[in-house]
């Protein structure tokens, strides 16, 4: 617990330092509208990162969740358009369930066949993307077709402010959803036995089994939750961007994994926290969105993200090496 708290402090310090530097380069960073848009950009990546956090604490890795997010989002939106349904709650339940079921598939294959999660999720990602694009469709659902209820939801703000020139900007209400789910996952991870079983499994799967954890159940919990969060985040993304693009989210896996690693999570399992992950997501999104503010061409974005990931794992590798094995 102490180590965890320490590394969270370190991450928070990095965050503050980065904010100060970016703010010095371009004071526009500190404008409320910029901060609000940063927070908005946190929501979808953050929700997915919570799922990946669970998986990485359990010692696994997942590159299929973006495919699941697409599948859940596109299926639900297309169905809503097809049957002319206009609501919010049911679609989100369905999207979450679709994600969860696809996660169950991952859990089953990984647990049953003892196969490396990376390879399994590479396979299921291709399977699901191929099925969605080949079986459901490849065309976007644009704003003119999108169910109004979803657009309405995406536009909801907690606070709306007016700029000097009369245009308005606001803080999206979806940040509340993100905060609520983050707190929920935090409580589950720290206060429930299923949450602790994730840490135990990540620390030593064999020992977890010997102590009496039902490890199959843990794997199902981990991968289903990750899938469900991805499905939910997928639909939320569509409602916030007023668009359902079945080819979207390509390469986003990496951003999310980078954020989780940045948040102090170890790929070897057994370590990681919601607080760290939330901070990690914020750092990553902030760096990405501030490139323009810092006068760096957007073409450098992937280089920067890759660089951030490499430095984050290098630092965690050094940290893990220092503590005696």
């Amino acid at each position: 617990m102490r180590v965890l708290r320490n590394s969270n402090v370190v991450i928070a310090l990095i965050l503050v330092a980065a904010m100060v530097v970016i703010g010095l380069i371009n004071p526009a960073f500190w404008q409320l509208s910029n901060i609000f848009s940063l927070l908005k950009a946190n929501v979808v990546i953050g929700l997915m990162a919570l799922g990946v956090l669970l998986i990485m604490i359990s010692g696994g890795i997942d590159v299929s969740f973006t495919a699941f997010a697409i599948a859940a989002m596109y299926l639900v939106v297309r169905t809503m358009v097809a049957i002319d349904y206009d609501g919010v709650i049911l679609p989100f339940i369905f999207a979450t369930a679709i994600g969860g079921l696809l996660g169950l598939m991952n859990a089953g294959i990984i647990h049953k066949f003892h196969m490396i999660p990376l390879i399994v999720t590479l396979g299921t990602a291709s399977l699901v993307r191929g099925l969605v694009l080949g079986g459901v469709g490849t065309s976007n659902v644009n704003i003119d077709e999108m169910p109004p209820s979803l657009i309405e939801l995406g536009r909801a703000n907690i606070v709306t402010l007016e700029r000097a020139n009369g245009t308005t900007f606001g803080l999206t209400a979806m940040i509340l959803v993100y905060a609520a789910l983050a707190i929920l996952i935090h409580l589950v991870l720290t206060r429930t036995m299923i949450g602790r079983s994730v840490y135990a499994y990540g620390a030593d799967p064999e020992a977890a089994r010997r102590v009496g954890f039902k490890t199959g159940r843990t794997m199902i919990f981990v991968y289903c939750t990750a899938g469900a969060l991805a499905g939910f985040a997928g639909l939320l993304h569509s409602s916030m961007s007023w668009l359902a693009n079945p080819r979207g989210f390509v390469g986003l896996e990496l951003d999310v994994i980078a954020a989780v690693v940045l948040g102090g999570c170890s790929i070897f399992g057994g370590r990681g926290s919601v607080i760290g992950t939330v901070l990690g997501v914020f750092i990553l999104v902030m760096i990405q969105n501030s490139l323009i503010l810092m006068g760096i061409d957007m073409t450098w974005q992937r280089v920067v993200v890759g660089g951030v990931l490499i430095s984050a794992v290098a630092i965690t590798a050094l940290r893990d090496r220092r503590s005696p094995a």
Partner: protein
Amino acid sequence: MMKGNTRGTEAADGKGSGPGRFLIRARADTNIQLGIICILIIILMTALQPRMFLSSYNFESMAFFMPELVLLSIAMMIAMLTGGIDLSIVGVANLAGIAAGTLFGFLAGEAGVGGLGTGAVILGVGVGLIVGVLAGLVNGLLISGLKITPILATLGTGQVFIGLCVVLTGGPAIVGFPSGWTWIGNGKIASIPVPFLLFVVLCVALALLLERTSFGLRLKLIGTNPKAAVFAGIRKGRMILWSYMLTGALAAMAGILLSARVNAAKSDYGSSYLLQAVLIAVLAGTNPAGGRGNVLGVALAVAALTLLATGLQMMRVSNHLIDFVWGAFLIAVIALNSLSARKGL
């Protein structure tokens, strides 16, 4: 895998020869099975689409685009031999093609790349390969020097390489290479496609390298038991560095073939190749935990999957559904391997 090994002399003393014999058989078996699968697919596709499938055009076009996938898969297999993985191969491939393309643009200036001769093309190949080796060196240093897990290291460098592609091209594809370059991807020598010749030569060379040299044996020993390799005096860090440099060079070669074949280079070409390379490596009997893998198996696995994919394309199955089939195939292979391993023990 290693966890099981460290435990229990008693088990090793008692259990007899069952698992051992299985392991010896496994490799020969995998290749024979793959050969049989190839033949079955040919028979099946011939039955479904006799005219098109058996046409020489079909086999010729396969001979043009199969080699790049084989090279990427062998690159993946070599990374897996030491228990690692290389998720940056597609980024390296594209970067090599784009680096060469950028070089040609620079050399030709206003005149247009059409005027560039053999010398420039050879220089381009050299630059592409150097880019690959350097990329592999970066991966190797991160993995063996900084001790970063191969998954995360190559995931990160893969992004950096693709990012550099975007930076070099500014986004759109580089179109138009010198004719000497496109000959590498589309030409023929004595009516045999050049990529196919390259593929045969490289496969033989790599098979010899892995099967008949101390380099190959050292890599496999490291993958089998990294700790014992150190105690046996194998320079683990250095060997891993070499293996990722080789992986990078092979990926770059694949990138050269790809850009030569389509006469263009772009940051997101061949993105589905990553999954396919992993799938093929696993299908070919490579142990992702290290120590086992062979070139012939990879070539056979690529042949099987390419036959299947072209057959499906002829039946007008969409490319997206073929992606689905790849994924399903990978899962099926995992399941079968796991089940047969359980039976074998």
